[in-house]
């Protein structure tokens, strides 16, 4: 009973200290929030790129083709809201501007485009993109591919109609003008019908769940990875902060005073750890609340599983902090080691969200390597609870492995730590 009271009073002291340290709080609470929101915002915007109205890219268009297909493509590109299409006469001038990063891309329609399509010769539209902006490049190429598909269909149908007409021998005796007129008219009629038909797809893919609920696999699923990833990454910055806070206690002599008072050694350590576990919980609450309320991140249906995952993750992070404190010579060294550990573990544990799913589900070397980090197990646990409606039964392994890691690390740390 007494030990618990001592532990709680150490925790309270630590909380008071932390609450005055605004810089640390800002890093632990605001930075992950900022990163999470910015990354989520980008992905949200990119996922709606075709619907969004604001102009994102200046693109030069060099249309060297005098025929109908060039005109058609130019009109189609002009309709796309996120592109600001600027006509240009000189491909080389425009290419220079792309090279300098002044415009995002230049699209060059060759002078033979209509002629080639008419004679059914494969042809190519060039897009020169800025190598320093790979994301823009892939969006612009994607849009251009879509626009090009339309004229490809047109060209294919035209060729088909002409071939059939020729094979039929119907127009053999007609003059070239009549031939062209008939082909053109037939093509027009067919394309009108085709476009009419394409409004409703010939094959419908009906995606639903067993209960018949329509599947809306949206970007929210990705957020259920993104926000936990940033949260877990920043929880592990506790390593450096808690380790140096423990060592500062030793360096300034307050540790000795506490030990002189009738406070058990265990209570000093446990009290500190408890305070940092609470900090980790606060990080999760803030990030998940913003993810859920502002970005529609799902939370799953098992709050208990989320709480236990969070506590187990926080335990590992603080235990690692104690271990670093035990092995470091000074608080400064502990701080540095802690920061590096936090980044490196986050990188190989998949908590720097460069993938779209937890690393445990990624193929290859990194998928296996990630399993040595607590991050990978924590993220897998959150992902299961939040996107697959897992309950405790489906994440006990993740919680268990985190607890084992936490306890083992804690035992090693207390064994090695010198109080004086």
């Amino acid at each position: 009973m007494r030990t618990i009271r001592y532990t709680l009073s150490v925790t309270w002291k630590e909380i008071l200290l932390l609450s005055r340290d605004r810089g640390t709080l800002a890093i632990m609470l605001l930075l992950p929030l900022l990163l999470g929101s910015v990354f989520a915002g980008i992905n949200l915007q990119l996922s709606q790129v075709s619907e969004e109205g604001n102009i994102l890219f200046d693109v030069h268009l060099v249309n060297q083709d005098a025929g109908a297909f060039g005109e058609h493509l130019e009109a189609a590109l002009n309709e796309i809201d996120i592109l600001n299409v600027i006509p240009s006469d000189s491909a080389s001038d425009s290419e220079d501007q792309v090279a300098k990063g002044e415009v995002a891309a230049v699209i060059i329609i060759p002078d033979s485009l209509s002629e080639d399509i008419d004679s059914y010769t494969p042809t190519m539209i060039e897009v020169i993109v800025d190598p320093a902006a790979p994301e823009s490049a892939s969006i612009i190429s994607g849009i251009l591919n879509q626009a090009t598909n339309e004229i490809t269909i047109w060209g294919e149908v035209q060729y088909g109609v002409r071939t059939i007409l020729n094979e039929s021998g119907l127009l053999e005796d007609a003059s070239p003008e009549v031939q062209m007129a008939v082909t053109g008219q037939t093509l027009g009629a067919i394309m009108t019908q085709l476009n009419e038909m394409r409004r409703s797809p010939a094959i419908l893919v009906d995606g639903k769940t067993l209960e018949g609920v329509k599947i809306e696999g949206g970007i929210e699923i990705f957020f259920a990875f993104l926000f936990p990833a940033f949260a877990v990454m920043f929880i592990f910055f506790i390593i450096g902060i808690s380790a140096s806070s423990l060592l500062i206690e030793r360096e300034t002599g307050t540790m000795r005073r506490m030990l002189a008072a009738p406070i058990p050694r265990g209570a000093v350590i446990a009290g500190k750890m408890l305070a940092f576990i609470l900090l980790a919980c606060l990080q999760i609450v803030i990030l998940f609340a913003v993810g859920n309320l502002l970005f529609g991140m799902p939370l799953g249906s098992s709050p208990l599983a989320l709480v236990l995952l969070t506590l187990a993750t926080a335990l590992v992070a603080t235990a690692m902090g104690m271990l670093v404190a035990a092995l470091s010579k000074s608080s400064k060294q502990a701080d540095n080691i802690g920061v590096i550990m936090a980044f490196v573990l986050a990188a190989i544990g998949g908590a720097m969200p460069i993938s779209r799913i937890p690393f445990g589900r990624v193929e290859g070397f990194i998928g296996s390597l990630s399993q040595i980090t607590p991050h990978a197990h924590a993220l897998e646990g959150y992902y299961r609870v939040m996107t697959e409606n897992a309950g405790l039964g489906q994440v006990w392994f993740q919680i268990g492995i985190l607890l084992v890691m936490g306890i083992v690390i804690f035992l090693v740390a207390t064994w090695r730590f010198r109080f004086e």
Partner: protein
Amino acid sequence: MNALKIASKDLQVFFKDRGAILTLFVLPLVFVVVFSGALMSIGVDEDTRVALAVVNLDSGEAAQKLLDGINNAGGVSVELYAEDEAMSLLEEKEIPRVLIIPSDFTAGMDAHHQVTVQLINHPDADMEQTEAVSLVIDGVTQDMALESQIVASLEQMGEMQANAPEEFQVFTTERNITQAQSQFENSQNQSLVSVDQKIPGQTEKRKEDLREHSAVPGIAVMFVFLTAQSAAHMVFDEKKVGAFRRLLAAPVSKADILIGKMIPNIIIGLIQIAVIFAFGVLGMKLLGFRPMSLGNDPLALVIVAFLVALCSSSLGVVIAALARTENQIGGLSTLLLWVLAILGGSIIPLFYLESFLGPIPKLIPHYWANRAFSDITVRGLGIGDITLEMGVILLFCAIFFAIGLWRFDFD
């Protein structure tokens, strides 16, 4: 001369702090590996196809074509099941999803009716995978649908001519289908109109993986500016132990002291840039990736590196001048430097930032540093193309230094 003496002392102090060395030099390399995409591509096997359970209730040609299409699209491999078996496995979550092709699929396609295939998922199936599988199925069905619709519109043409004498009936079903099929087969191999993506000056036909190296300059800039924090720390430590008062007692000017404080940080920044770019070239090569290009103008690269390091260390002086406690340097300034790096475009593509922040990124030194480095390395430009960027960075240096000199409390 005095400044140099102060600088050499500070460098000696810095190189004793192994932790700081690790943070400043090793962390950026971790970032390069992570953000260049290298990390994800180590040891990835070719065949990572997702198995898709399919119940094919139709024995017709179109259904088989759909299955072949899905199998050949890559990413998904079809496994056939009987309906009962598939549904019970799905209930038990033994398989995550089932594609059901209805018995009237081929008949419906032939008659140009709309047909529906069902993709039934377990409610807890991996959603990312569901999306990937849906994308593949959508792609294949869209192609098939287009082909069928083209044939259908040709046939309608034929029907419109149904009253004409037989020799004028050109669009017969048989002809239409043969023609459409032969063209579709052709277009699988080569599209009539294709899009060729290039980068400026590229002559050979090869699609570059652009993501690979555009990340390196941004990471270099971010970490050099993060040094500003350790610069501020060094200055502050000195203030705390009273070393400044002693320096002031010596016949040294205030500007001398500040410059002396900045020089070691400039040198550290330069070493950082050298290490990061060297890793982009040699380290990536060792790891089996394409080394990054350092561009065509080494002199420009050195000048920009110097300016960026100068700017970072003058920012450090500002931080030291404005911070009141050591904690502020450790916490708030770290936060500030990360925020500047993010908003300045070091990690996040600029087009996105500019789309909602407008001109704000332009007020951040990182923005100009990123532009200058990208121009020289990724874009391969020369010193003449980056005079504006260099000028702005220099302006930032001057402003920071002036603020530092004005606000710095030497006592």
